[in-house]
């Protein structure tokens, strides 16, 4: 039986793709190459950087006759291929793309998501930030594309809902902004007392470093969606990330026996700590492991996914909602230095499962 793994191997999201593949393969190795008691052959396809490579790659997997597909980093790719999967009756387990619409009210039977939903990420920290800044106000900054706007909107909804005041909001040209000085200057002039930010990849690194070097970090605490300080970004930032409070549903620091076992196995296999991306793909594999016990045809796998009670994730047990969305617990994390290395320490859960 063939399972497609659609992850970026080239382009700017390739590091995320690598973590996902490692997470997926770790789960498969632990299950001795079998999912649901059936031998599985993994077919990897390169999602690339944008839909013009990702959509053909997904179609290629469908044409190869895979039984199910796991992966997809870009929301545009996930949204672009969902109809094709529905028509081909092949289940797609999205393991990173965060767009709210992927698991919206009219979600397809064949589309599932073992990863975060943007609204759950940035939405779960709003009330906490409102409480922290009290009478002060917050400036919101994110890249100017769908995910950036969804993060900003999700944050504002719960932040303003909890009585917070937004001092200003700006969206930076996506994928073209290396110099944040004009935006940082705008933040300073807005009179805000704190900042909420979402960025990824090289923009996250540039933003957080310049936030320090332009002196903003001395006066304005930075709150962020956890992707700013995850994986490669955290490593590149090093000390520059210290003190950033952020929200995400996993950290290798999570102190549970399940997670310690997972971190040990992952580190032994790949000589680096796992990231949220590894866990999301690991959980996609666990979902398929349970679902494939029912059968291998598309509708049978869907029936299996519908029958899942809980997934024993390293991030804590979770289950699928009615709209096929993984219901993770979201944590407040803070970047702290441990033996010279930055880590995301878990402060406390922000949501109940």
């Amino acid at each position, binding site marked *: 039986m063939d399972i497609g793994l659609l992850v970026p191997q080239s*382009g*700017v999201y*390739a*590091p995320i793709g*690598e973590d996902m593949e490692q997470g997926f393969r770790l789960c498969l190795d632990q299950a001795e190459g079998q999912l649901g008691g059936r031998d599985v052959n993994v077919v990897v396809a390169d999602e690339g*950087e944008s839909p013009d490579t990702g959509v053909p790659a997904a179609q290629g997997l469908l044409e190869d006759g895979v039984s199910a597909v796991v992966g997809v980093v870009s929301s545009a790719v996930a949204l672009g291929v969902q109809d094709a999967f529905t028509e081909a009756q092949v289940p797609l387990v999205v393991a990173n793309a965060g767009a709210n619409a992927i698991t919206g009210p009219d979600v397809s039977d064949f589309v599932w998501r073992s990863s975060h939903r943007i609204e759950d990420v940035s939405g779960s920290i709003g009330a906490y930030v409102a409480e922290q800044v009290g009478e002060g106000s917050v400036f919101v900054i994110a890249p*100017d594309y769908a995910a950036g706007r969804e993060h900003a909107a999700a944050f504002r909804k719960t932040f303003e809902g909890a009585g917070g005041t937004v001092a200003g909001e*700006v*969206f*930076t*040209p*996506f*994928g*073209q*902004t*290396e*110099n944040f*000085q*004009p*935006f940082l*200057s*705008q933040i*300073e*002039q807005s009179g805000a007392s704190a900042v909420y930010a979402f960025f990824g*990849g*090289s923009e996250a*690194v*540039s933003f957080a*470093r*310049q936030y320090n*070097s*332009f*002196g*903003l970090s001395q006066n304005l605490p930075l709150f962020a969606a956890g992707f700013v300080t995850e*994986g*490669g*970004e955290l*490593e*590149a*930032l*090093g000390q520059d990330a210290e003190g950033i409070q952020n929200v995400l549903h996993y950290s290798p620091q999570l102190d549970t026996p399940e997670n310690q076992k997972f971190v040990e196995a992952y580190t032994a296999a790949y000589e680096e700590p796992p990231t949220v991306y590894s866990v999301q793909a690991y959980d996609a594999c666990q979902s398929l492991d349970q679902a494939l016990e029912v059968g291998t045809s598309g509708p049978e796998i869907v029936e299996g996914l519908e029958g899942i009670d809980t997934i024993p994730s390293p991030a804590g047990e979770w289950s699928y909602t009615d709209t096929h969305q993984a219901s993770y617990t979201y944590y407040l994390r803070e970047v702290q230095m441990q033996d010279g290395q930055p880590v995301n320490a878990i402060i406390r859960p922000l949501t109940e499962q």
Partner: protein
Amino acid sequence: MFGFFSSNLITVVDGIAFGVLLFTIALGLSLVFGVMDVLSLAHGSLYLIGSYIAVSVSTAFTPTLGFFVLALVLAVALGSLAGAGLSFLTRPLASRGHLDQALLTLGVAFVVGDLLAQQYGREVRTVAPPSPFDGSVSVFGSTYPTYRLVIIAVGLALAIAAYLVIERTKMGALVQATVADAQMVRALGVNTGRLMTGVFAVGAALAAFGGVLGAPILNAAPGLDNRVLILGLVVVVIGGLGSVAGAFVGALVIGQVQTLGVSLAPSYAAFLTFGAMALVLLLRPAGILGKGRLA
């Protein structure tokens, strides 16, 4: 009016820093086009090579000024070699027009990009500014990273040096003459082949130098080569192809567009750079300082 200036003064300064950095890329691009008639799409890769040299040096040693200078020297050396290599690669295509050169140099850019990603990984790599300039100073009442002031100083020095070489030396006169009329220079018995290799090497060395200089603020990551290349192309087209002064003016204009412009019209930030280029091309098709060589 004064309030506007005082609140944006620091942004203008930052635009200059960004502009002179762009100048290091644009100058080579512009000269190579002017002298060899080659639109080198591998120029962004040379910048990225420079940035990764900075990464290598800064991971191997402590980020002192001495090692930063070492990175600059290495970048200039490797950059000139790469430039000479590119000049040999493009030479056989001299009679075949811009598109074949574009195909070749884009192919080279793809290969170099892949090799760099294999060597350095696809994660973002950062470089600390050299230690004496690692802090911030107060400029016009705002906190400003010292290193960006260093970039301004180095970039301006480079611009003056380039101007002097082009305007005051025999070599510069030859380069100018070749830009104006390559066939004439050849007819006068000048070895244009050596001249072209030299210009390509210098242009490439400048881009690699810029890569080291820019690494502490722009980091190093796959894909940066493309963005730098496109910005460089925009700069030379705005300034006028083949002109040192044009590259400088174009770089300063784009530097301001990307800082002051973004600051004044954040909602249109994504349109500004290419909007500015389209506007200049429509009003002055040969660029701000172009000499009307349109074809």
